[in-house]
């Protein structure tokens, strides 16, 4: 089981790179979008994935220009989108060439279908194509390579305006690099594809699957802007609201707080992670919005219960947890509910109730240490030293090897996205069949 905690935190930076062959790049991109097989790191994906960050920046600018031209050609109302300046003025022949490509594209293919395929391509690059530092090893960046040995945080911060991703593990900053731009490009193309995103199944599926992926991989730095954009398009989407709640719940966790704290001593770097209190408040708000959108969303109720407990509202927490249990229908989720409910009962000084729920959790997962430690602590809190020692000895009697243990608590902050692969398959399937989603 992987428990190395990677918290990616975002900071502002800027880069400057020369533009390079925009016409050829645009042609390559169009071909890649049409030829890419979703769900694979195929040649088209690797080709675009190998572009440098500077090339991607210029491409983003050219893409924005192209989208505007196609909308005009198709007689569509122009979309409001931020106009990205190219790194240097776009020469007139380049402008004419992009116009030509745009017109040719508009006549040749289903524009919406093309843009959706583009969103899938860029998501696949971000998810499947190894970064290979391709987006950071630009000429300007090679002079200042990300290198943890040389205090990279200190060296990096002066350079720019955009994003820096800090990777941390077990609360320690490991590495630093510029974030990939493929998620931004994917969002730009997808948002241009749908006139009514709230009713567009591809938009919904894309945001749900990719957000699940980002949270499952603990790529928090990307998940925040992703969810912001997703909820802007789909404000009442219960699944996205749930993911937003779970993200903030994870931000309040000791592992992310420790990672964020590890960066506090770095001047001019600011973590996006708020205090425990602030993150829990946001989590509660999003879980409540989830339940308002879908009152039968039992997993959201389970998490709301936990968050309320962490905020000291134990009776309210216990009520939500109790309500969730009959609707959960999944052993792992019921385990969480029993564990959390035991905790709330203990906080409410209802010893028997606490013991009962901890014991149920222990029965569901006989090789889990958390309920046994909880039973030990409960016994010790009530002066039952032999009982406490007995429970702890049960923990010691569990198999010593990690892979022989099974405690879902260790996966709690990723449990809500355990169906990521299925969501991604669901997103890609219509494109693989060749149908028009």
């Amino acid at each position, binding site marked *: 089981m992987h428990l190395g905690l990677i918290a990616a935190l975002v900071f502002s930076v800027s880069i400057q790179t020369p533009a390079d062959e925009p016409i050829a790049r645009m042609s390559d991109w169009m071909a890649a979008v049409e030829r890419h097989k979703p769900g694979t790191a195929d040649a088209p994906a690797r080709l675009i994935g190998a572009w440098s960050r500077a090339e991607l920046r210029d491409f983003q600018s050219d893409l924005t220009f192209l989208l505007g031209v196609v909308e005009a050609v198709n007689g569509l109302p122009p979309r409001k989108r931020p106009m990205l300046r190219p790194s240097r003025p776009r020469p007139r022949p380049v402008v004419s060439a992009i116009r030509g490509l745009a017109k040719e594209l508009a006549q040749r293919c289903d524009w919406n279908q093309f843009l959706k395929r583009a969103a899938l391509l860029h998501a696949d690059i971000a998810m499947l194509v190894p970064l290979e530092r391709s987006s950071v090893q630009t000429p300007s960046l090679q002079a200042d390579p990300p290198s943890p040995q040389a205090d990279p945080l200190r060296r990096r911060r002066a350079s720019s305006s955009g994003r820096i991703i800090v990777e941390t593990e077990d609360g*320690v900053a490991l590495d630093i690099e510029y974030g990939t731009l493929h998620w931004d490009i994917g969002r730009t193309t997808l948002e241009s594809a749908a006139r009514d995103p709230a009713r567009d199944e591809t938009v919904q599926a894309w945001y749900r699957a990719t957000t699940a992926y980002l949270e499952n991989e603990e790529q928090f730095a990307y998940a925040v802007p992703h969810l912001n954009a997703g909820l802007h398009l789909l404000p009442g989407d219960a699944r996205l609201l749930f993911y937003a709640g779970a993200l903030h719940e994870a931000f309040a966790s000791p592992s992310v707080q420790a990672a964020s704290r590890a960066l506090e001593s770095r001047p001019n770097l600011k973590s996006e992670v708020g205090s425990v209190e602030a993150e829990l408040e946001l989590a509660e708000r999003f879980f409540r919005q989830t339940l308002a959108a879908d009152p039968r969303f039992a997993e959201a109720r389970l998490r709301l219960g936990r968050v309320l407990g*962490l*905020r000291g509202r134990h009776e309210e927490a216990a009520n939500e947890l109790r309500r969730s249990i009959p609707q959960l229908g999944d052993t792992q989720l019921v385990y969480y509910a029993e564990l959390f409910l035991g905790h709330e009962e203990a906080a409410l000084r209802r010893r028997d109730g606490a013991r009962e729920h901890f014991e149920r959790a222990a029965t569901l997962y006989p090789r889990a240490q958390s309920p046994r430690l909880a039973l030990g602590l409960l016994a*010790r809190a009530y002066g039952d030293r032999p009982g406490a020692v007995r429970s702890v000895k049960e923990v010691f009697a569990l198999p010593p090897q990690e892979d022989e*243990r099974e405690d879902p608590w260790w996966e709690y902050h990723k449990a809500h996205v355990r169906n990521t692969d299925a969501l991604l398959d669901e997103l890609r399937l219509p494109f693989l069949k060749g149908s028009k989603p």
Partner: protein
Amino acid sequence: MNLRAPVGLALLLAASGDPIEAQRATFSAKTEAVRVDVLVTDNGRPLLGLMPADFELLDNGVAQQIDHASFEQIPLNVILTLDMSDSVAGERLDDLRSAGRSLLGALKKDEHAALITFSHVVTLGSELTTDFDRVRAGIEAAEPTGGTGLVDASFASIMLGESDVERSLVLVFSDGLDTASWLAPDAVLDVARRSDAVVYGITAGRLRRGDFLRDLSELTGGRLYEVESTADLGPVFVGVLEEFRHRYLLSYSPNGVSKDGWHRLEVRVKRRGATVKARPGYLAGS
């Protein structure tokens, strides 16, 4: 909709082990004695040879008659609790293993040692034993992986200490903050308040006020060592053992104080310049 929003509510962390009425603690067969582990130093050096009459002990402000002041007479139970999370790898692991071996080499034959290693998984490397080779083998076999379940492991270690009547030194090494425990820090600190075990925390790096290992060390009358480099761990481990051996174990039967609740302890020595370190209090009936 923006995920960032103004916020300002306070968090109340749930503590699952609230102080409650509990059965009386007993430290001998018939009397309700209280034991207090005390370190007395003068200019940083342990002050040796003190007798019960040299101490003043106030229990909730009421002076108590000290029955015994034992010194280096009671065999120790040393519980080594070592962080084996992902961040303890490479050189750190070598240093940690070497420090563990040094500590075991400094133990007396009639003393006991146990090993608990932790990542997110709490593992018993060795029960309390006089077979130090077994503990050594446990240290060598442990491999770093996963997150840091410091709070869970600390609780398990205190309970292992409480499983035996001897005097327990819990030596906890961690190179970071907790990232994986189920148990709430406040609840485990509450248990530590009730325990006789003395915890010495050793950490690579700096901890803040309010960090769990700092609080745990202070609450149990132990001490926190913050080392700059894990290369220094060996002398620190052995130093902790030496310091613990130089502690006095005071024993008294509470008189004129309530039989339950939190008891504030003040221990003084009738010597000018002497510094006393002891647990700040105990919870009666636990």
